[in-house]
């Protein structure tokens, strides 16, 4: 049986530092904090990782550690406390894939960061495509039904935000074009 201690530290960093950084960025909205959260996660692994018995849990362990550190540092835990069970899904507004394809990645990132805290973390983990719903529930320590509901609502909210942001960008381009023609 492969023991967790055998998981090579360097390979672990190579495999996970980018998704961890992106998750940290979506939580903190700041590059420097995301980098610190990523670093802290690997430092914690170096000290405590050997206590983990199941190598299959390494990925979830790293993301959970980063998330807990974020909550501890920001003392935002109160914002994430469940007050009611959310289990309903919502129909997302239509958004054409061809329009989505043309959107700059920075705008997509901005739309994600615009989401409310409670939607941002599950939606980020959803779009990373590295975690099952059950793993997302473990990382965020919320019920599975709540995860799915928040992803449903978060994705719908993100489409609305993308729609707003692309409209604003389009106006800027029109405005600049007009200025150019007038000038």
């Amino acid at each position, binding site marked *: 049986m492969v023991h967790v201690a055998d998981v090579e530290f360097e390979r672990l960093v190579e495999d996970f530092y980018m998704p961890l*950084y992106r998750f940290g960025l979506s939580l903190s909205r700041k590059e420097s904090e995301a*980098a610190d959260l*990523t670093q802290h996660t690997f430092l914690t692994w170096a*000290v405590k990782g050997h206590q983990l018995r199941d190598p299959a849990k390494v990925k979830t362990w790293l993301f959970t550690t980063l998330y807990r550190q974020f909550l501890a540092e920001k003392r935002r835990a109160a914002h994430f406390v469940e007050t009611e069970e959310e289990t309903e899904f919502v129909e997302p507004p239509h958004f054409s*894939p061809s329009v989505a394809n043309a959107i700059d990645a920075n705008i997509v990132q901005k739309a994600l960061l615009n989401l409310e805290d409670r939607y941002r973390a599950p939606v980020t983990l959803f779009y*990373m495509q590295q975690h*099952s719903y059950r793993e997302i529930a473990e990382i965020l320590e919320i019920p599975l039904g709540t995860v799915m509901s928040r992803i449903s609502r978060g994705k719908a909210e993100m*489409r609305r935000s993308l729609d707003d942001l692309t409209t604003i960008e389009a106006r800027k381009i029109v405005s600049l074009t007009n200025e150019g023609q007038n000038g």
Partner: protein
Amino acid sequence: MKDKMDKSEIRAVLSVYRPGDPETEDPRLQQAKAAAAADPELAQWWAEHQEFDRIISSKLQSGEVPAGLRSRLSAWEKRTVQRSNWNRGFLLAAASIIALAVLFGSWRGPFQPAPSLAEYRDELVSFVKLDPPLELRSSEIVRLTEFLQKNGAPSQLDIPRGLRRLDPAGCRTLRFRGQDVALICFKREDGELVHLFAVKRGALPRLGLKRETPEFAAQGDWMTAAWGGDDYAYLVAGKGDRASLEKYFGTS
């Protein structure tokens, strides 16, 4: 749960469906999938929804990760792996190696050869390529040196006159190969930071720095200048070309 869902409810349920995820194989989702299979309009909507998700996922995963992050983690990696190995019983093996080395006269003191200037420079510059987390933020140099002294890092610093004219942003302590390093960050005229590191000269004998004469070396789009003082070896690092640092030493 209602027996029959309308189209809006079906779209809502389909929006969370993920192929291959066991949690989305429940009866409600299966019902929505079956409805989409029987209705071309729903099928078209669902195909577009999945394509949209794929595009968004790809764009979010293409977001840049700071270039210095991997280097910073590597720098920590060496230390933390070493430390955790010690914690896990490596101590005995290491002690045996040291005993053998001493016995055969090859032991030179530290656990690895003393680092070169290039290694020192590379590791510290990689640390500050991302704005480093500061332990004390202050524009008063006295407060910063007091903090460094209190934390056992070099503090009686001989700071170049050009740097002293800049406002400090803050400071922190670092460890490099077991040695305390002081870091003071100054606010440059263009809003960027310029970083001053200091470490005890005796701690790093292979640095081989000449006194008072800065040795310039580029690292990507960063420039560094290193020199030796009476007690400490100094390193200054900042984004830009040689001229961007030379001005702090009064050599241009």
